[in-house]
């Protein structure tokens, strides 16, 4: 149902993953995941090593934060994130590159995993693993299946349907074996017979390579998918792979599915087999107007400016926007001095002309937004309901089912900011529901 075909622009496909050097000072935000911020457990003057716990998850919906560098803690203060909002953070002055002894830094690939499912989940929590598909949902919560429910399918999202992004593609090409081990570990944690890797069929090389590697593993099936945005959205992917539909207001586990991003499986492998916490991102630096395209392994806490300076020197003069994420769902970064956080998949530079939105005109009732909506909703209707403050009706028309993929805005010939309006409407509906409780 629905979907659109934006220009793919996977121009950084062939750039092998490079390692970004560590800067002089790192700022690690305590709020790198969905939920409450982690509580700092270090103080000014403390010496830390790479991989040492610096922020502890004390709330339920929270994830541990580890030091991406070794050095001395300068201060525990607040720092402005990429959108200019103050977040609690730990500032670390980098001294050398001393890793915790427990972390296995050898290049050997370790296949065997004998941990029990509960131990795997506990270790994911300890290592601060979060979903790297964009929502940064704490992994230990996702893989703790609630009582009375049973997972039947594990689906790995390698669709990478967002334009420009290539980090998952590079991971598949360079670390296929590790990814497959990570998938086997997750299969073990969930107790499911089969795992399916969904890859869009516009990546034939990745499909062939993954199929070849997956043959050595039990119960991993590579599933080529139709090219369509948003093929990698959780509910769309479940439908494409299993044919099941997640009912409105339900979670994937209600239809026996667990969906994980491909990047997360690589992080799971490193966490479980190599004892390495989530301290690095695999990140694409791309843009049509950039002199070169890159894929990097970047320590979390490196600022956008440092990444730009190292990869392309400086931003081209025609830069209109720097986006973290793809062009469809990514967010524009307003503060380039902000540190990167877990789940950042790209630094995407968009030219001035392309970045600007076209002026909004009146709705011509063509219905393109409704046919583009992958959730079968009616964006034009929400636009009117939100504008007129009819929140109750918007809720009745399932506004909360919207996955904010941006297909409606993308397809609208009148350039109406439909996704923005729906997001505003969703906020209002949530506030209304909270007030009723």
């Amino acid at each position, binding site marked *: 149902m629905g979907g659109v075909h934006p220009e793919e622009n996977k121009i950084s496909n062939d750039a092998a993953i490079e390692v970004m050097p560590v800067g002089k000072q790192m700022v690690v935000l305590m709020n790198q995941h969905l939920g409450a911020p982690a509580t700092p457990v270090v103080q000014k003057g403390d010496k830390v090593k790479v991989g040492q716990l610096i922020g502890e998850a004390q709330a339920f919906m929270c994830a541990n934060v580890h030091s991406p560098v070794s050095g001395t803690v300068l201060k525990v203060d607040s720092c402005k994130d990429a959108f200019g*909002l103050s977040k609690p953070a730990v500032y670390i002055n980098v001294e050398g590159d001393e890793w915790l002894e427990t972390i296995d830094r050898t290049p050997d690939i370790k296949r065997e995993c004998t941990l029990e499912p509960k131990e795997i989940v506990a270790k994911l929590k300890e290592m601060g693993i979060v979903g790297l598909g964009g929502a940064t949902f704490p992994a230990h919560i996702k893989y703790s299946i609630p009582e009375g429910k049973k997972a039947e399918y594990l689906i790995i999202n390698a669709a990478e349907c967002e334009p420009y992004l290539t980090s998952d593609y590079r991971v598949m090409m360079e670390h296929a074996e590790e990814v497959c081990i990570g998938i086997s570990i997750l299969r073990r944690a969930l107790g499911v017979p089969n795992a399916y890797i969904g890859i869009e069929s516009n990546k034939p090389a990745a499909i062939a390579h993954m199929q070849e590697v997956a043959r050595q593993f039990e119960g991993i099936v590579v599933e080529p998918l139709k090219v369509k945005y948003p093929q990698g959205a959780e509910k769309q992917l479940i439908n494409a792979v299993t044919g099941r539909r997640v009912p409105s207001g339900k979670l994937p586990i209600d239809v026996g599915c667990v969906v994980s991003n491909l990047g997360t499986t690589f992080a799971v492998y490193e966490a479980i087999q190599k004892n390495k916490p989530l301290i690095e991102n695999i990140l694409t630096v791309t843009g049509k107007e950039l002199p070169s395209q890159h894929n990097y392994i970047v320590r979390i806490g490196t600022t956008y400016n440092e990444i730009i300076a190292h990869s392309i020197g400086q931003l081209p003069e025609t830069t209109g926007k720097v986006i973290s994420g793809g062009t469809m769902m990514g*967010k524009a970064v*307003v503060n380039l001095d902000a540190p990167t956080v877990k789940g950042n998949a790209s630094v995407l530079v968009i030219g001035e002309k392309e970045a600007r939105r076209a002026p909004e005109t009146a709705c011509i009732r063509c219905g393109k937004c409704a046919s583009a909506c992958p959730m079968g909703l009616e964006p034009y209707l929400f636009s009117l309901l939100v504008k007129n403050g009819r929140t109750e009706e918007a809720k009745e028309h399932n506004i909360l089912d919207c996955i904010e993929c941006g297909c409606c805005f993308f397809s609208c010939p009148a350039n109406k*900011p439909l996704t*923005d309006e729906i997001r*505003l409407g969703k*906020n*209002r509906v949530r506030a209304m529901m909270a007030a009723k409780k």
Partner: protein
Amino acid sequence: MTQQILIAVVVLGALGILFAVVLYFVAQKFKVVEDPLIDEVAEVLPGANCGGCGKAGCRAFAEACVQQGNLEGLRCAPGGDAVAAKIAELLGCAMVQGEPQVAVVRCNPANCGEKRRSNYDGLRSCAFQNTVYTGESGCPFGCLGCGDCVEACQFDAIHLDPVTGVPTVDADRCTACGACAKACPRRIIELRNKGKKDRRVYVSCMNREKGAIAMKSCANACIGCGKCEKVCPMSAITITDNLSYIDYTKCIACRKCVVECPTKAIHDVGFPTPAVKPAPKPEAPAAPAAEKVEIPVAETAKA
């Protein structure tokens, strides 16, 4: 034929009488007695249904007035004292005099208009922009400039300044109904007493960050330094969360804080001349006088 007509007339007539009797008794049984006073009170209200009184509309306010029998805690801000007097007369109770109020926008961004730090071209809605990022000025507490307050105002009393993009209140039109204050997602609009001779002093900032960070956000931000608190003769100023607040019930509009504020975050409205530092010591006035003597003209005058 005649018989048929007769039957119809008799049957329908009988039914009509029967229903009339039933309806009469039902009407007696479920009679709603409404105080005619409610209509009278509703008549004197402005009828804008702005909701500033906290009731659903003017009629609901009238009902509340009549039910309560006095004006204790009930006030129609747009109507002001004139309407309050009329309602008091109708109800036969004492009039509750209220201090006239006005909406005040507590933001004066340094990075606005041409100097803005980013360019927002999403949905023109402050409520939405607030969920996305800090806004064009770069201050997480400041005005977002999409005009949710302008849309909320029923009295055409608040408009966006074309240069700064921040709303300005037309004090003559503002009825202090508070609709704009409720519409603002960052709560930067406050209702304050109009003050004597329409003169008022307020902190034009809502930034609660620590001084150094607030300064980075905006050069005009209140940094919570406490100078105003010290200089205030009426102890009307308090500082909470690095932000100064002037209690308008205590303020005498002496403007000492306006002069003292290092970031010019405290604004004065309605004064004929700008606030200047008054000569602090008694000897000071003598000094300019002595200077004057040195001027030849003064000498001739003396002679």
